[in-house]
Each structure stands twice: as C-alpha cells, then as structure tokens.
C-alpha cells in the first residue's frame, strides 16, 4: 500500500491557520466540527489548494514542497477525491462520468458498483446512494494512489446512511488503498477507519484507534466528540477527587483523579435509566425529568438533566418513558473519566 505523508502543511484560513502533520497508510478518518479545516486537508492533498509551507509526499514522489517550490498540479497527482456533494457532471451520463477519469474504464466499474442498469442515466435522476456509487467508481477509475472522501455520508438521509455505510465499509476493507475520509460524525469515523484524528481549528488534537479515543480522550473536546456526556464540577473537598460536586449540587463519585474545576466524561452506553431510584449506593444517580428522547434505529437517547443515556428502544417502551416523566440516570464510578482539570495544585 502506498503512503501519503503531510509534513507541517500550513494553509492560512480566514480565522486560523491549518497546520497539520499526518500519515495516511491505511484508512484514516479526520473528524472535527465544521469549519475545522477538514476539507482543506483533502484539497491540499488533491492539489486544489496550495499550502503556504510544508511538504506533501506520496511514497517517494513530492507533490508539494514549500521550500523547494514544488507544486504538482491536481491533474498530475493520482488522487481519487469524492466530494461531499459528489460533484458528478450533470451533463454526462453515468458511463461518461466514469470514463471522464479513464477511457474505456466504465465496464469494469459499472459491474463492480452495480451501476450497469444506470449507465445511460444522468446524475440528476439518481438517488443519493447511487450518486455516491458513481462518484466512487469515477474516483477509482482514475487509479489513484490515495482515496479522499469528503463527508461521504453527510448527503444521505438517515435511512440510506446505514446501508451505504455498510457498503462503504466493505469497499474500503477490500481496496488496499490509503484512504483519508473526513466526517463530523465520530460514529461514522469509528465504523469506517482504522485510525481517527480529531482536528479542531486547524490543529490535530489526538490521533488513535477509535477505541483509544473513547478510552483515553485527551481533552474535553475529544471526549464530547466521541459521544461522551461532559459534566463540570469541583472536587468534594480539596484534594479529594473521588467526590465531585456538580453545578446543581449532585455528588458524583469517580475513580479518576483531578483538582480544581474538573470535567468528567461519561459515555451514554455506560448509563442506565430507571423509573425508581436504584438501591445500589455505589452508583452515581442523576434524578430529573426526561427533557428529550431521540430514537435512532433500534436505540434511543434519553436525556435527563446534563446527561444522555443510550438504551434500546425495547427498554424505552418497557419502562414507559416519555418526555416530562421523572426518571433516574445511574452510572458506576468506574464509568467516569476526568478529561480536564484546571486551577488545581498539580
């Protein structure tokens, strides 16, 4: 597998500078909030944006070198870029779109991407999932050294998304092609990528496997991005980090250590919901009215006060939960993690 390396690539953006060093040698996801510079990273690799400084290498070929003034034009780099809106040529048929990348390549990809019946159709008449298949086929027909996917699932509705994600997962695992995908959804990143880099305001905050990011988030941002609930509070007594007073007075026990103002991360799947107060005194309990319930497939997110719990739709119905109902969210001390402390004595 080829390897694409970004060395201190700097691109001045409107309010901050993008400054990224990154190696793409497997499937890597770049996650972060919108406006963090994710797409700019893709554009820099594709040659659509010229960085101010740094180096971009593809194996031993230099695509960009700020100091040596090397800039390979996008048409001379072998990059398969799939745009968020797919950017299919509206005046060309599916077949012509694929052959735009490489002549006589269509037949191979039409079958592989189940597009044979649509080969004469114009992009305007295709569904979101079909468009993405055409965009992928077109990008791969280019025979790229690296595949770049910009928010591959953002343009799809929730229903198609699940299927397309599974398709994409299967495709990427069989490709043997370094892939950099950009998403604002940690769940998508975790499902598709071997490694995840969290980017905020142009800087990488943390890189690791999805499991590592969930287990050891480097800061509150990474924690909240990986889906954790963040609770802010102060240790019960000075130096005693096992008891944390939240802003509303609730006392939370944690197995982690911290000082001063601390931020605790609790993952939704570590929280259980009940309609009566749990007997177990070792549990942390947050009581209150349910303020929101969001169903996602067979799971549901239930929000009580500052936390959201993830439970199955079955238990949602079994417990007869609805917004406005009084309920208890409980979680173990070992399920909490201090991700930031400030103003402490450390």
């Amino acid at each position, binding site marked *: 597998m080829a390897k694409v390396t970004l060395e201190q690539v700097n691109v001045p953006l409107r309010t901050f500078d993008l400054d990224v060093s990154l190696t793409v040698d497997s499937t890597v996801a770049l996650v972060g909030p919108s406006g963090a510079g994710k797409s700019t990273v893709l554009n820099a690799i594709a040659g659509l944006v010229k960085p101010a400084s740094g180096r971009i290498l593809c194996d031993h070929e230099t695509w960009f070198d700020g100091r040596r003034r090397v800039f390979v034009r996008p048409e001379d780099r072998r990059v398969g870029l799939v*745009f968020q809106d797919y950017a299919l040529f509206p*005046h060309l048929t599916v077949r012509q779109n694929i052959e735009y990348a*490489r002549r006589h390549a269509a037949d191979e990809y039409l079958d592989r991407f189940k597009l044979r019946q649509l080969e004469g159709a114009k992009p*305007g008449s295709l569904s979101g999932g079909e468009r993405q298949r055409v965009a992928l086929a077109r990008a791969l027909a280019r025979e790229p050294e690296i595949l770049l996917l910009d928010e591959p699932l953002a343009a799809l509705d929730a229903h198609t998304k699940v299927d397309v994600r599974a398709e994409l997962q299967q495709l990427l695992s069989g490709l043997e092609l370094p892939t950099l995908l950009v998403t604002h959804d940690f769940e998508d990143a975790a499902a598709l990528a071997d490694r995840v880099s969290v980017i905020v305001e142009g800087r990488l905050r943390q890189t690791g496997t999805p499991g590592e990011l969930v287990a050891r988030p480097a800061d509150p941002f990474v924690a909240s991005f990986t889906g954790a609930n963040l609770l802010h509070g102060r240790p019960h007594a000075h130096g005693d980090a096992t008891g944390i007073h939240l802003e509303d007075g609730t006392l939370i026990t944690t197995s982690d250590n911290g000082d001063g103002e601390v931020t605790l991360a609790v993952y939704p799947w570590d929280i259980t919901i009940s309609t009566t107060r749990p007997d177990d005194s070792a549990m942390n309990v947050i009581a209150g009215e349910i303020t929101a319930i969001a169903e996602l497939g067979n799971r549901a997110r239930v929000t009580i006060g500052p936390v959201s719990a993830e439970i199955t739709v079955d238990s949602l119905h079994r417990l007869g939960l609805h917004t406005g109902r009084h309920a208890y969210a409980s979680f173990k001390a070992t399920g909490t993690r201090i991700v930031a402390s400030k103003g402490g004595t450390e």
Partner: protein
Amino acid sequence: MRRTIGYCLFVAVAVLTLAFLLLPIVGIFVHTSPGKLLGQLSNPVVKDAFVVTLKTSLIAQALILLFGTPTAYLLATRRFTGHSVAITLVELPLVLPPAVAGVGLLAALGRNGLLGSSLDAFGISLPFTQTAVTIAVAYVASPLYIRQAIASFEATDPHLTAASRTLGAGPVRTFFRVVLPLARGGLIAGLALSFARGLGEFGATIMFAGSLQRVTQTLPLAIYAEFDVNFDTTLAMSGVLILISALLLLTLRIALSWQRSPSSRSTSLLGLSTST
C-alpha cells in the same frame, strides 16, 4: 375591501403597461396587410439593407463570441486588482449613448484618429465601410453577451471544475468538457440578446459608417432613410425586424430554461442582476 381596491389598481396599471408595450407592434401590423408587407420585401432597398444587416451582424456576433467568451471566463473565475475596472469597461457601451460611441470610434479609428493614422499607413481606412458597421455593432452589442457569459460562468459549480482537475483533465480540457457545456444555455441566451441589440444598432453606425445603400445601410438606417420616401417600405422593414426579434426572444427563453435545468441556479434575464 381596501385590499380589493388596491389589487384592482395593480391589475389596471399592469394591463395598461402591457398594452403600452404592445401598441407600436400592433400599429405596424395593422397599418399594412401581410400581402403588402411581403410585396415590399422585393424592394431593392429592403433587400440590400437586409443583406448588409445580416452580414455585419453575423461577423460582429462571431467576433463577440470569439473575444468575449475568454474575457468573460477570466473575469468570472479570477479576482485581480483592477477587476472592477475591467467589469466597468465591459459595461461601458451599455450606458454610453450610441451616437457618442460612434463619435468615439470615429475619433479613435477615423483617418485622423488615435489609431487611424497608423492604419492609414497600411492603406486601411475604416470609416464608412462595411467593416465600420461591424465594428460599431460589435462595440455596442458586446456587453449584453459578455455580462450574461460572466453570470453563466460564475454559476458553474466550482466543485465540478475541481473534480475535473482531480480526474486528470487540465484547465483547457476542463473548460471545453465541463464549463462550456454547462454554461451553454446562458451563453446562447447572451448571444441572442447581443444579436437583437446589434440588429437595432443605429446611432453608432450612422456616425461611424454612414448610411450608404448596399454598403453600410443596415435595416434600421434604411428605415430612417425610407421614412420620408415610402412609408410602406418602412413598415415592411419594421415588420421583418419585429419577427427576427421575436425569434431571438424565443431562443433566449429556451436557452435560459436549458441553462436552468442542469445546474438549477437562476440566471437572470439580461444577466443584469445575477450575483453569487
């Protein structure tokens, strides 16, 4: 109640406006029978004027297309110092009184003009030739095409050109295979407008090229010349121009609906207010 009165007032004003716009056209066709109109078309003055108009218009539009398209693309896709000055220059002929444009062309390209003396050295004299008609028409009509072309190019999704580049097409191939086909509708609409404007050109032409039958006398100039001589001829020529204009307007409508369907971004008629 007050709302209905207001509404009726609006309808009345609108009907009056539309009637006002239609009135001269009705006048022309009511004044003479179709047979009489057709008979006048064999009149040599009419035939000569028609040929001169067609020839100069076609050449002028070809020149506008050839020079205007790259200019418009550059202005639409690049931002450079002096960009707004360049846009103002493109729009200048639109606001310049045609007679002034004619005087200007004469002062620049006339025998004693800015460039005229150099041209004279090569034995080229432009004023009062068919070339002068073509130049006058191109000068006056060009903004209508270039403005619409800029708007069409600006409406082309930049992701599509970027995609084309990453798929291995250089800027030139991208222009011909992606940009041009997508802007096609808008470009044809602009050309139709520019053509219509060129057909009616009067002021600049009469100043710079004069009104010589079979050489520089275009239909509008012939209409003016025949006005005192034979009013029926005038009407016939007017009828011809109306028909051509109607045809151009139809082309424009069709072309614009074309433009809209693939990229779905709106392109205003005349391209006078499109911005991205």
